């Protein structure tokens, strides 16, 4: 019992922020096909992500973005689509705002010298819907 209490006390000291959570967005049936890479995904990634998550950036210029998490191509998005949903998407189970971070570069690979533009709630919802309908293969 004491251990459990200690664990709760220690958990209260956490510095971890909200954990990544899958939004559990389900693509409607039939698929409306309204959101695609061309009309949504590519612009979303360019607006909010590829300042750091780009295949053209070497590790020293990624401002902390993990290697192999590159969103300048649909293939790159597809490889970690569930992860994108968990960090930036919004849906029935979660409203994730861990990404983009607070500071961004003005040019891809540059220093963190400006506030990051942030997607609206509607854009985050559309992101998860696009991933569910157009990117993540159905179970």
């Amino acid at each position, binding site marked *: 019992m004491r*251990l459990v209490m*200690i*664990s709760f006390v*220690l*958990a209260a*000291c*956490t*510095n*971890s*922020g909200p*954990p*990544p959570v*899958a939004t559990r967005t389900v693509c409607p049936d039939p698929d409306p096909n309204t959101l695609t890479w061309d009309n949504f995904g590519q612009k979303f990634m360019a607006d909010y992500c590829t300042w750091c998550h780009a295949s053209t950036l070497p*590790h*020293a*210029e*990624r*401002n*902390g*973005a*993990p*290697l*192999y*998490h590159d969103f300048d191509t649909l293939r790159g998005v597809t490889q*970690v689509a*569930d*992860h994108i949903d*968990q960090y930036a998407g919004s849906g029935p189970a979660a409203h994730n705002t*861990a990404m983009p971070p607070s500071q961004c570069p003005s040019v891809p690979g540059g220093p*963190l010298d400006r506030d990051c533009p942030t997607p609206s709630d509607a854009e985050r919802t559309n992101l998860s819907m696009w991933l569910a309908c157009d990117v993540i293969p159905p179970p």
Partner: protein
Amino acid sequence: MSRRIGVAALVGAFVPQASGVVFAEHDHGMAMSENHHEDSSELSAGVSVETARFTNTFYVGSYQGIMPSLGWMRGRFGASATIGLYHLDENGLSTYGLGDAMIAGHATVLAAETLQAGVALHVMAPTGSEPDGLGMGHVMAMPSAWAAWSARPLMIRASAGYGRAVTALGGGHHDHGPLPLVDPMNLQELTWSAGADLEIGHRVQLGGRALGGIPIGTGRTRMIGGGRVAWGTPRVSTAFELQLGVAGDPFTIRGVVETALHF
């Protein structure tokens, strides 16, 4: 007395996360103490400084850390607490922050002339930022058992334990490689360690050890090897350890300098 400090050495050295030099060093320094009484409490205060480079699937970088620690022992029982303050460079992003805090309790259950054994419980608090690669993001509980055999100038020790995040497992965490970057662990794993120290005179010890973790379920097998040199008096002890990441990419190389005062 040397028995009791040996316990501190073992418990610290076998922590899966900690570099553990200072705890092992306690053994050396305090083994020489001649004015300590079994029924009295003993306090220690230490600080550890470390620097490491890492290269894994997703991150390339380095970190530097400073870790103050406090320890207490009385009879068969003891406790310690430590927390790290880090500078981390990961894929070009420089961050500063706390690591996960750790508290530990331990008890000796067997104390023969040359053989000692006991149990320990380490608990880590998620004071380090998980997104920044400085913390696990969960409370971690790590019970373990340890044993040591000593016949001067040689001491051999080993431990086995279990580490688990105090949270629901399998929560769909995306694989980001070994995390946290400053001292990776699996959410659930078996831990182990083995090592030996040899006194070579003039209050100097040479030693080597290996330690690691074996994931239960998904995760990465991790192994660290290290060699160290330590020097100590009854009141002050200092050690340097050079460690290599043998498996699981915990780091490529890490250097640790630790010193402690005993009261």
